[in-house]
């Protein structure tokens, strides 16, 4: 995941000095307060049922898959891009990993084969996105939109529009485990989030991502191989999609082209609410995790209280608008 160092010293200066708050502490604090308030609402309306350990795990399991995708999305958006293909790529990866042939060989050898296939599909799709964006100079929105449509079609074609059931025993055993009482999905989410945080905040790869999002041309002039970096970024996002696909298979024991439907929107919403600028140049992994948790906790509270999803979608919309308005104000203040 880490980048071989080329010229690490000068470039963090390119990351427009001053606009990158150190760690973004205050804004993350606001997010945490928002999450706490939402939890408080949950506790008041649903009481002990909401606050139970079982329910916390239910929320985290719900958050895990979208969460992993959102980590990858954070990198891409920070660099001024966007990846609309994450949802259908996730579906494609689950389909490809669960074909009859792959399951046959997985049963003959090891279930890790299915994991490998899903990861390869995710990374390959990401690489393709990156090449279209970096070398083809296609706008990220269009390049990944094309990938979204094509991946969906390919997934339907491979699966013959059916749901493929996972019948590999080892796979099932691994993903239904609860090490230390915490579901495997949640562990994976935690590891990916931690790794994402380290790469984002503690490596030159992360710094360059921020720099490119701040000003692509300046970054190139400062010696960053921007094209190659963009390709790697989309591949990284593809990797998280592959991981999420494996998690989805673990959760549903099935592969189908409908897996991941609308996850591009869910992940973008979580990233933006988390405080990453859609225009690029600033982002936060921690914020993204909180953003995902805000949405999933909200969903859980609505379920707990028997409220219709229509109301929930309206609430979601209001939260997104609120977050974007907040971002605009911050951006203006930074300019002034």
């Amino acid at each position, binding site marked *: 995941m880490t980048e071989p160092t080329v010229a690490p010293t000068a470039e963090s200066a390119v990351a427009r000095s001053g606009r990158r708050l150190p760690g973004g502490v205050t804004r993350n604090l606001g997010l945490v307060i928002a999450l706490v308030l939402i939890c408080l609402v949950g506790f008041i309306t649903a009481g002990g049922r909401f606050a139970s350990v079982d329910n916390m795990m239910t929320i985290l399991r719900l958050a895990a898959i979208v969460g992993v995708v959102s980590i990858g999305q954070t990198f891409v958006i920070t660099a001024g891009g966007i990846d609309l293909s994450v949802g259908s790529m996730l579906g494609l990866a689950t389909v490809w990993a669960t074909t009859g042939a792959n399951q046959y060989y997985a049963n003959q050898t090891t279930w890790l084969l299915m994991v490998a296939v899903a990861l390869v599909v995710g990374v390959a799709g990401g690489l393709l996105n990156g090449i279209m964006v970096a070398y083809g100079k296609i706008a990220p929105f269009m390049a990944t939109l094309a990938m979204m449509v094509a991946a969906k079609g390919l997934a339907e074609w491979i699966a013959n529009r059916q749901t*493929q059931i996972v019948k590999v025993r080892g796979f099932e055993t691994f993903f239904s485990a609860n090490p230390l009482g915490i579901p495997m999905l949640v562990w994976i989410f935690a590891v990916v989030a931690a790794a994402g945080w380290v790469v984002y905040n503690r490596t030159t790869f992360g710094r360059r991502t921020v720099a490119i999002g701040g000003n692509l041309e300046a970054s190139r002039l400062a010696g960053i191989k921007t094209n190659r970096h963009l390709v790697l970024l989309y591949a990284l996002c593809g990797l998280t999609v592959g991981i999420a696909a494996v998690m989805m298979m673990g959760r549903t024991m099935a592969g189908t082209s409908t897996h991941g439907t609308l996850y591009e929107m869910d992940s973008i919403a979580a990233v933006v609410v988390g405080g990453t600028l859609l225009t690029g140049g600033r982002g936060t992994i921690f914020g993204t995790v909180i953003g995902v948790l805000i949405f999933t906790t909200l969903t859980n509270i609505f379920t707990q209280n028997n409220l219709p999803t229509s109301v929930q979608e309206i609430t979601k919309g209001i939260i997104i608008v609120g977050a974007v308005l907040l971002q605009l104000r911050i951006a203006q203040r930074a300019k002034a």
Partner: protein
Amino acid sequence: MSLTTAARRITIGGALVALAISLAGCTGAAPTDATSTTASTVAAAPPAGGNDATGTKVVIGFSAPAADHGWMGAISKAAAAEAAKYPDVELKVAEGTNDVNLQISQVETFINDKVDAIVILPYDGAALTPVALQAMKAGIPVINIDREFDSPFAARTTVLGDNYGMGMSAGMYICGQLGGKSDSVIAEIAGIDNLPLTKDRSDGFAKALSDCGLKVSNRVAADFTVQGGEQAASNLLQAASHIDAIWNHDDDQGVGVMQAIKNSGRNEFFMVGGAGSANVMRDIQADNTVLKATVVYPSTQAADGIRMARLLVQKKALSDLIEVEVPRKIILYTPAVTKDNVAQYLPTAFES
């Protein structure tokens, strides 16, 4: 892998005779007018005085896909209405999602809440199987509606519509009308082509037609929406200059299909609908359009599921069966509704 949902449903269609229980015959009566069913108390029925007598309190969790078309909307509405009829039933509705990850989470919430039973119409039967197994393991009976799980252990009772039978009923009606004329042009407007149920419907339709020497000449697919139905039907009418009969899989998209037919000014054919919306039934009753019949795909399946859940938890049996327990699987009948029998079906039809 080997047994796909589609394949299994076809098998079920074949073995229908063994299991079929008519909706109208057994579970159609509402508690208010249920005197006839409850009066015939069977040996196995509890002494409490009929199944509809208020029993122990039952908390039921209910989850279904997003109500993005009339039939699916009717599913949830009918389930809630059914639950409201019983003072001993408390229904928790985790309404409407097409995201399996979220639907799984809803079922997990029901398990955490220790509800007495879970009624679920899964967005994807295979994908919801693991969490249904988990609920069953936790001792919560699961009632599976419409889209079947891929493990027999994942549900205590399954209530299914019969997609293959739906195609059969439509085909048999058309055979009856066109019998003998083997050069008849028959068109089919399918629903979403990548759903297993669409394949089942088309297979049943083709089978029934072939039994009377007919076949589908033109087939187009729409997407259960009004807009999609209009487009598909326009193309179809453009492509076939003469048609004798049309089967349209879905009455929601049928609104668009009828509009396209109206725009074309054609009326040399008759049309059979699918699912059985109230609009279509009223048209059949009025008998002033090309719509002459529709095939019911009960939108009251989940409502039946609610009743089954209540019976299971209260340890009661289906009063019209001799069995001590609620059946393992109930496959609903898909009758063809025509002008002659429409009055019988209109009250339970859904508004699209």
